[in-house]
């Protein structure tokens, strides 16, 4: 038929299962079901043999196959995992259109001419996928993408290739159910009209279908008639931006590496600019001779320039050493991966210059080069029960992620943040290492707390143990007001990290307020409200 593209569709059956299984660390040969909205979306061959079908509820599926591994459907993982497969096919033939993850279309003409016949070209693609560790894929060749897709789906597991000769697509499609059109509303109507196969639907006159079912129906009718004139549109191949530097022989000095990186960085930034992009997150991977791969992600508040790249590489290699210091192990390879690239317009300089952020970033980077990467930090407040636990220092330029999520309830925490917590002041000075102390009652003996939270006596004074941080050590601080104990029993199920503590607030005679913790029988001054 004229105007139709001879199309080849490559289909990887059960692709969501393969992608999800690999992402979750399972073998695709296990019985696996991928669920979406509580229903089975795709199943592996092993699960299918046990009777698990698409559309079942999770509980029914598990009752049919108790050892079923249930995974959640994630379209992002699905698409991401399919990307390398496309890349591997593109090595053979360009111009591939991704229909959905697990299925792609290409014009059959080119490969056919190159490999001789259509089935030879299809064999070649399947071979390629087989070596790429994507087993069991199928190929269908027909006029138009729709017919080719149906051909791929109806190819047998043995031959794996189905070629519908040119012009025979309408006959090939005729026996298929109208469900293959994937338009539930329309097929429901067609079924009630007694039109169960595509062939029966195709018998209707196009004008009448258009008047009765509208443009959507007319399009479905065209598909059913085997007149699918949609072209195959090749995807845009994403530009390759990763840069790799191999050192032969291995280089063992920071400045040598930095020197070599300079030219590559210039070229990378120039290429990004050419594409209208700026890099905001750069990953630097360093392979050393000892086999260790040192990988690190660098976030830039604005955009990475060539000088920034060199500074990052330097910083990563150097750690806390100086510029000319030797590396622990010689570097054999260095990769620069722009992890995140934004359009240039989003980060363009204002009319009045680069704004404050650029200046601040430069000054802080300078301090980092003086003291080391971790010495300059920004703070994020996360969750946790102690004040020290809640604040996390993040080295400047890294992604600010708190150590504990703040959106959890953290019962028992002393914080003024939410109304459900105890409304109290937040300590302004949190000792990096709590100061050991002795808290005394009227008899001069150490105060302790029983398992049920009962105090052994009223705390009347405390004495900080002598140490370098304590100026007036050994001085007795009389307590004028106090409250507590607030018992916290954290992670009692895990003997390694369990911690059972009691917190107290004290006000001393010199009008200072303190936060104390009692852990078993040892007292610590955790923080002060100074």
């Amino acid at each position, binding site marked *: 038929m004229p105007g139709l593209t001879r199309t080849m569709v490559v289909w990887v059956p059960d692709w969501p299962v393969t992608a999800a299984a690999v992402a979750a660390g399972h073998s695709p040969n296990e019985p696996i079901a991928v669920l979406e909205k509580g229903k089975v979306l795709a199943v592996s061959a092993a699960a299918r043999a046990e009777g698990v079908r698409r559309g079942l509820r999770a509980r029914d599926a598990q009752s049919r196959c108790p050892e079923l591994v249930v995974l959640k459907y994630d379209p992002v993982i699905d698409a991401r995992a399919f990307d390398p497969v496309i890349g591997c096919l593109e090595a053979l033939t360009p111009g591939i259109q991704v229909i959905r993850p697990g299925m792609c279309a290409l014009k059959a003409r080119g490969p056919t001419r190159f490999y001789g016949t259509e089935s030879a070209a299809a064999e070649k693609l399947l071979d390629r996928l087989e070596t790429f560790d994507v087993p069991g894929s199928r190929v269908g060749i027909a006029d138009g993408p729709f017919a080719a897709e149906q051909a791929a789906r109806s190819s047998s597991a043995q031959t794996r290739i189905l070629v519908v000769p040119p012009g025979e697509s309408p006959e090939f499609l005729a026996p298929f159910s109208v469900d293959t059109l994937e338009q539930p509303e329309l097929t429901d109507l067609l079924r009630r009209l007694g039109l169960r196969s595509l062939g029966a639907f195709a018998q209707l006159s196009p004008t009448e279908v258009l008047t009765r079912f509208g443009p959507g129906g007319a399009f479905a009718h065209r598909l059913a008639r085997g007149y699918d004139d949609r072209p195959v549109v090749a995807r845009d191949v994403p530009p390759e931006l990763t840069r790799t530097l191999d050192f032969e022989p291995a280089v063992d000095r920071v400045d040598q590496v930095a020197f070599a990186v300079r030219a590559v960085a210039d070229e990378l930034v120039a290429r990004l600019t050419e594409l209208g992009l700026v890099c905001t997150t750069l990953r630097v991977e360093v392979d050393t001779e000892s086999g260790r791969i040192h990988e690190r992600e660098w976030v830039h508040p604005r955009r990475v320039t060539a000088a920034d790249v060199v500074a990052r590489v330097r910083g990563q290699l150097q750690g806390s050493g100086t510029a000319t210091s030797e590396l622990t192990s010689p570097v054999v390879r260095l990769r620069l991966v722009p992890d995140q690239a934004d359009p240039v317009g989003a980060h363009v300089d204002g009319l009045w210059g680069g704004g*404050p952020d650029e*200046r*601040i970033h*430069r*000054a*802080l980077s*300078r*301090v980092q080069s*003086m*003291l080391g990467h971790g*010495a*300059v*930090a*920004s*703070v*994020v*407040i996360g969750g946790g029960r102690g*004040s020290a636990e*809640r*604040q996390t*220092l993040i080295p*400047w330029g890294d992604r600010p992620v708190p150590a504990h999520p703040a959106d959890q309830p953290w019962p028992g925490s002393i*914080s*003024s*943040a939410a109304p459900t917590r*105890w*409304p*109290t*002041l*937040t*300590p*302004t*000075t*949190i*000792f*990096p290492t709590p100061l050991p102390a002795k808290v005394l009652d009227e008899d001069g003996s150490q105060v302790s707390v029983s398992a049920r939270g009962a105090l052994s006596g*009223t705390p009347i004074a405390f004495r900080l143990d002598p140490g370098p941080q304590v100026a007036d050590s050994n001085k007795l601080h009389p307590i004028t*007001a*106090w*409250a*507590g104990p607030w018992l916290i029993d954290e992670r009692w199920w895990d003997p390694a990290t369990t911690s059972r503590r009691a917190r107290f*607030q004290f*006000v001393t005679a010199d*009008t*200072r*307020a303190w936060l104390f913790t009692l852990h078993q029988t040892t007292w610590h001054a955790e*923080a002060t*409200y*100074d």
Partner: protein
Amino acid sequence: MLLARAKAQKVAQAQELDETAEPVGLRRVLTAPRTTETRVQQALDTASVDRVLPTLPAVSELLAGVGLRGGSVYSVRGSTALVMAMMAGPSAEGAWCGVVGLPSFGAEAARGLGVDLDRLVLVPDPVHDWLNVVAALVDALTVVVVRPPGEVTPGEASRLAARLRTRGAVLISVGSWPGSEARLEVESNSWTGLGTGEGLLAARQATVVVTGRRAAVRPRRHQLWLPGPDGAIRSAETIRSAPRWQEEAVG
């Protein structure tokens, strides 16, 4: 100093103009760009020198009605909360703050007192390089808090002072600092909310002693909610031992 220089230049140009008053048209064309340039320069210099940063009302009351002045050093003793209160005003208005040499800085409390953590940078341990670190930070940040590890020599202080003036930044020293604009010290606190064995710390009223730069000035005492029961920093009634002399004291 910069002002004086700019003035001198202006005077010199005026004299120049007077001497060669004859070919007016030509002269004007030649000198016009130069005067504009100096004027712009002068404007830039003075802008950074005489800048008063946005300050919490309670804090500017401590500083005799004036806000934190760009280019000066304040020394605070005995209270981190007071330092945070001083940072809160500029920080809320978009200024960047840095804290050097305070590994025990309670960032959550700072957030509670109004410091924006997105624009806060900590250098907990500047090792022995604290002066260079502070100098580098002063270049870019608006408020820098530092706890000097030892005594600060007048030489070190004057080196930083020049830099502070050109950048218009404020340095808050935790501990004493030679030649500071004002010295603030929390003398005593009274706490509310805590009893004997019950309650929770809810608010604090601090007595802050402020000493101006000149030696003759008598220290003033202020009562400050730091913070009050509603979490806000505001002044409780001021002890008016000596009325109405504050204005000329820190001027």
